[in-house]
């Protein structure tokens, strides 16, 4: 019984640590930021990444709304652009060594395509997490996002998220 009580306390800690009345302590804030980052970036997303975000409840709603509207951060975009550029340069070098290797598109198109995909991924995942959390603030943000121009896959994810909330 004591163990169950301890377990309940431990599970509740993320939200306790980030109580509404005061700003969260840095460690709790970092844990939430890492959970958000893991959800936005996961590739197969089969390891409970969304659950790890929704544990934090409405405290992460403003962050999710920021990602819904803004996608990836400027620093993350810059980091990805540089690593995509380096990957393309490596492919170009190999294409010179192995004539059968063909570059799929121009360097700038390659970077734009996959940086754009990451940005869309952030927005889609933010919409899905907002739908999982629910509430009027989440619904309002999703409705507002629908009024803006979006990529097709982002728009569909926002529409579905809204349907789920309503």
């Amino acid at each position, binding site marked *: 019984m*004591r*163990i169950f009580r*301890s377990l309940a306390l431990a*599970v509740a800690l993320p939200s306790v640590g980030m109580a509404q009345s005061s*700003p969260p302590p*840095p460690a709790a*804030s*970092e*844990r*939430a*930021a*890492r*959970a*958000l*980052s*893991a*959800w936005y*970036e*996961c*590739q*197969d*997303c*089969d*390891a*409970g*990444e*969304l*659950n790890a975000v929704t544990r934090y409840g409405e*405290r992460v709603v*403003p*962050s999710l709304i920021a*990602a819904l509207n*803004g*996608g990836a*951060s*400027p*620093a*993350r*975009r*810059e*980091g*990805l652009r*540089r*690593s995509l550029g380096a*990957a393309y340069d490596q*492919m170009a070098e*190999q294409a010179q060594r192995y004539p059968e*290797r063909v570059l*799929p598109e121009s360097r700038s198109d390659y970077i734009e395509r*996959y940086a754009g*995909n*990451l940005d*869309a*991924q952030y927005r*889609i995942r933010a919409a*899905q*997490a907002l739908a999982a959390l629910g509430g009027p603030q989440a619904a309002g943000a999703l409705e507002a996002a629908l009024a803006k121009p979006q990529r*097709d*896959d982002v728009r569909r*994810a926002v529409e579905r998220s809204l349907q789920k909330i309503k």
Partner: protein
Amino acid sequence: MRTAVCGLLLVLLGSASPARAFNHGLSERFCLADVVLPATALQKRAPVPVGCELVDCCPGCPGAGPVEWRIAIDAKILAGAELRFEGLSAADLKHLKVTGKAKRQGDRIVLRPGESRIRGLPYKAGAPVVVGLLRPLARKKAPAGAVPARRSVTEQISVRQFLGASPVNGFKWKFAIRRCGPIVDPPFFDKLQIQGIASGDDAVVMMDARTQAQCRQGTPPDPDWTFRSTGETLLPNLLSPGSCNSEIAIFSKKHAMKWETGVPWTNNLGEVHAVTLDPLIDVPVHIWVANQSAGVAALASAHMNRATNLYQDNMVGVRFVPTVHPVPGSAEATINAGVGMDASGDLVCQALAPIRASAFYTSGALNVYYVNEGFTGRNCAILQTPHSCPGSTFAAGDANITFVGTTANDTTLAHEIGHAFGLRPAICGGHADSFGGSFGHDNLMWTGSADPRSTFSLGQVFRMNTHADQWGGTMLIQNGQRPAPGRPCRPQDASALCPLLDAPWP
């Protein structure tokens, strides 16, 4: 006692979280001579953008403002690191407050092992992102005994970024350093002869055998016996196996992986063991385009080419032979129903039977479905991946089925085929980040970041060719492209028969 239990639970819950790290990290392997001066291998600069990982930095963060970097260098062989900032004027650089083991030297900051802080880095919404360029520094000579025989040591540079008191971004650069040179010392008596190596190719050999001194079979903590060969390799006198494992696995870019078990070395001196390599294995892949958007078929072909090149570079021994088929709009619902989100938000495979019964599935081959849904990718060997390992049983799906969504990156397909070839379950090391070890974000099975990936380890490639498990093992064997039987080497297994999952290339 109660406190101890609570503490333990907290630790367990903390470590069970899939939120592992911010998305920036590199992991590299060197031999000692490469990391002492002139250290030509250490010319690479790692870009570290200044600012937050998340667009709003973190829940409850103080908002925009200058960022502080806390840099820790844990190194005895490396001399430290050099840091330059792109997008920062000389005047801005002068205004930075540099403390700890960091010292300004002209237009750069030199960081010595230990802790350093750099305060006042500009981070403003809408302003161009300043980028730090880190480069490791080498010593003239490595300290004596820095790397024990047959082991490697790991050194690390880490950067944590803070906005006020809140950590908002991070970067880690790991360097695994081992001794250089042959693992085997003369005198040599026996010989391995690899025949049929294609022009311009060389081979990597992973070998278990009995020597005068011991069973050399990679039983932890001993590393696997690996070396490169262009045809003939001299060996010490290898003995009849006795109770030792005796086998050879040979990997190359232009040939199938050659796997010979029960290699019959005898105690005689001067033995020559000859092995003839076989051509690359052609792996048919049926790509079904269930997305009417323009350019998807071309994109799928580009992803397939990328996978072929990456699998060749990593000596998997296969060449993909794709056939692209359109799927009519009327069948899209059937295809799309095969993948979805469960109540907890996990991406799961479901309703595969109607797909398998449809005209849009080829049995005994890899089937990849490009669908108009906003996710990256999912292989269906396991319908729903559990969140704990080991001890769970997971329902089998069909490893020949893979879905690729609209936010895929150019290595998503290569990653999912890694699962099809037996790197699973994801949570048990099928994903490199769940394994830990020496994997970096560039590993093709890394899942926690959209950054480009390009490597498989030797331990992964061995399993992709040989793995047997309850979900059908590697599809190379199941689909008849490699001979049965396989070998059950789960990701976390390390023994005489199973190399470490992150066993490196020599």
